[in-house]
């Protein structure tokens, strides 16, 4: 069991509304990612769910029971912190055993649980070392181990991969996803990295300035973002936004085209521009193209793109891939776009 319901939850620090009223239903066994720029309130909301921050108003229900004022230890949740928060003077074994000892679990059972956690996370060789003697990835695994032995109804991850280097991050991403499939427990994962969000999540909640802009599966967010913020936040490189003059009967004030949908064409396209910096990644190429009156556009091309710095190009995009936004940033139904 591990369903969590947020009802009109808010948080204020002094005069600042960090979390504006939020409603969210997190289903049992789901992997949900909170993603957003820094300072958007996603970590605060996670800490409120964990019980580390008070809830200013609203209710947090865990498994159907109101847990708004329940102390952290009684909520049956486990958290993995950004700094791992391992106890530095205890061996790995004692770190993992700590929550069990506090819960007065019999020693034999503790041993068994440590052994099974060590097996799942490949920690067998390190059990008697101190955290200081472990690498970042190993510490991360110990922190996860300490979380799983408690058999929580949900796991909370607070940017757990941000202290790891890039290649390790990709590995741990896979391991955490694998762990979710193995344990089949609810996981709430906070990150500012939209790639992590897209690759790991069952559902993503996009945060911005204390509100949830959109909740949906990764593909829903990518294909049908509800507004300009979500469209710009999901997808890498970022979506190109082109300001246009609204005309009568067409309130579009901005159109968006993802770099992967922008194409170089021989015909007269929608825009013409000059190729700027070219980033070769091997499998693909990012072209930064300066378009007069529009600004720089990013274009994702094949790995063997023949264009050079300073070339003049015509650009186009399929009509069904061009998104329209009104002046407030809301997504509009698609209308034909013929350039500006």
């Amino acid at each position, binding site marked *: 069991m591990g369903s969590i319901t947020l009802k009109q939850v808010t948080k204020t620090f002094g005069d600042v509304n960090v979390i504006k009223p939020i409603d969210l239903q997190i289903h049992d066994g789901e992997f949900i990612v909170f993603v957003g720029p820094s300072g958007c309130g996603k970590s605060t909301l996670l800490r409120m769910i964990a019980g580390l921050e008070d809830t200013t108003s609203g209710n947090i229900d865990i498994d159907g029971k109101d847990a708004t004022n329940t102390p*952290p230890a009684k909520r049956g949740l486990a958290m993995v912190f950004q700094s791992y928060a391992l106890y530095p003077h205890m061996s790995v074994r004692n770190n993992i055993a700590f929550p069990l000892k506090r819960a007065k679990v019999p020693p034999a059972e503790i041993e068994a649980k440590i052994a099974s956690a060590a097996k799942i996370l490949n920690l067998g060789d390190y059990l008697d070392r101190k955290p200081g003697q472990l690498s970042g990835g190993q510490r991360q695994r110990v922190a996860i181990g300490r979380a799983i032995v408690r058999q929580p109804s949900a796991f909370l991850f607070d940017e757990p991969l941000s202290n790891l280097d890039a290649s390790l991050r990709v590995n741990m991403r896979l391991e955490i996803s694998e762990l979710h499939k193995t344990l089949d427990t609810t996981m709430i994962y906070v990150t500012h990295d939209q790639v992590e969000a897209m690759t790991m999540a069952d559902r993503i909640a996009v945060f911005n300035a204390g509100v949830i802009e959109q909740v949906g599966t990764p593909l829903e967010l990518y294909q049908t973002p509800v507004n300009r913020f979500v469209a710009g936040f999901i997808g890498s490189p970022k979506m190109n936004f082109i300001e246009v003059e609204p005309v009568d009967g067409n309130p579009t004030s901005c159109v968006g085209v993802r770099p992967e949908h922008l194409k170089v064409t021989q015909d007269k396209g929608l825009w013409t521009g000059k190729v700027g910096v070219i980033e070769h990644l091997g499998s693909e190429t990012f072209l930064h193209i300066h378009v007069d009156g529009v600004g720089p556009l990013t274009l994702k091309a094949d790995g063997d793109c023949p264009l050079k710095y300073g070339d003049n190009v015509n650009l186009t995009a399929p009509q069904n891939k061009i998104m329209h936004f009104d002046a407030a940033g809301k997504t509009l139904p698609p209308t034909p776009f013929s350039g500006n």
Partner: protein
Amino acid sequence: MATMQSRNLARMMLFPSVVLLLAWMIVPLCMTLYFSFLDYNLLTPGNEEFIGFLNYEFFLTDPAFFASFFNTLLLVGGVLLITICGGIGLAILLDQAIWGRNYVRIMVLAPFFVMPTVSALVWKNMLMNPVNGLFAHFAIWIGVEPVDFFAQIPLLSIIIIVSWQWLPFAALILLTSIQSLDREQLEAADLDGAGPFSKFIYIVMPHLSRAITAVILIETIFLLSIFAEILVTTSGGPGYASTNLTYLIYTQSLLQFDVGGGSAGGIVAVIIANIVAIFLMRLIGKNLED
């Protein structure tokens, strides 16, 4: 070879101060050692003669030596106990978010800046005086016999005074240590179901162990040579009840004019201090390694 050059230059420039410091230490030590083998009394100047270990024999068989030796241990141990326990409590209190916290911290530190003689006199005349002292007034107010601190519990009184002076030092060092504790560790312990007591025992205390070690080592060095507080309050009495080794050496050499005997006592004190230092380093010094 710039590094070789700079290293040599550094050595040359360090040389004078090292020599000066060494001389500053070695010369008095050697003179004390030399005097300790002489029959050297200021009342009979010019009659110094070599008497071997006789000074040591007299000093070590003097009943006052054993009394003052145990007084020294009690004084150091008592003050350490009070300042460490009180310091931990005070550090935890000062770590709480309270209004005017910075001013409170400065106020708490104040006793450390008061000269030992001054603070001992304040305690003697204003607080512990059996007739006019604040404690005596309080005792009379609640209807009990006032305690004559320096007559009835002389050593304990001195332990209290010295503890008052050193408590801020311990509290300050421990406070900085507590502030460097990772808050996420405490939050993790919260989630792991640790109550305030468990958090203190399993998270805060192990984190403080290094700072506590440093406080013990530093305080021991200074507490072995407590002198001014004894001089202005009890003068080591009644009898030898509040005489420590330092004070005994002072009486020997400057009140009885026996420089030879005092020097022998000084050398004994140096040896004892070294034994204590080795003992402490063995016992807790490993906390400082990392």
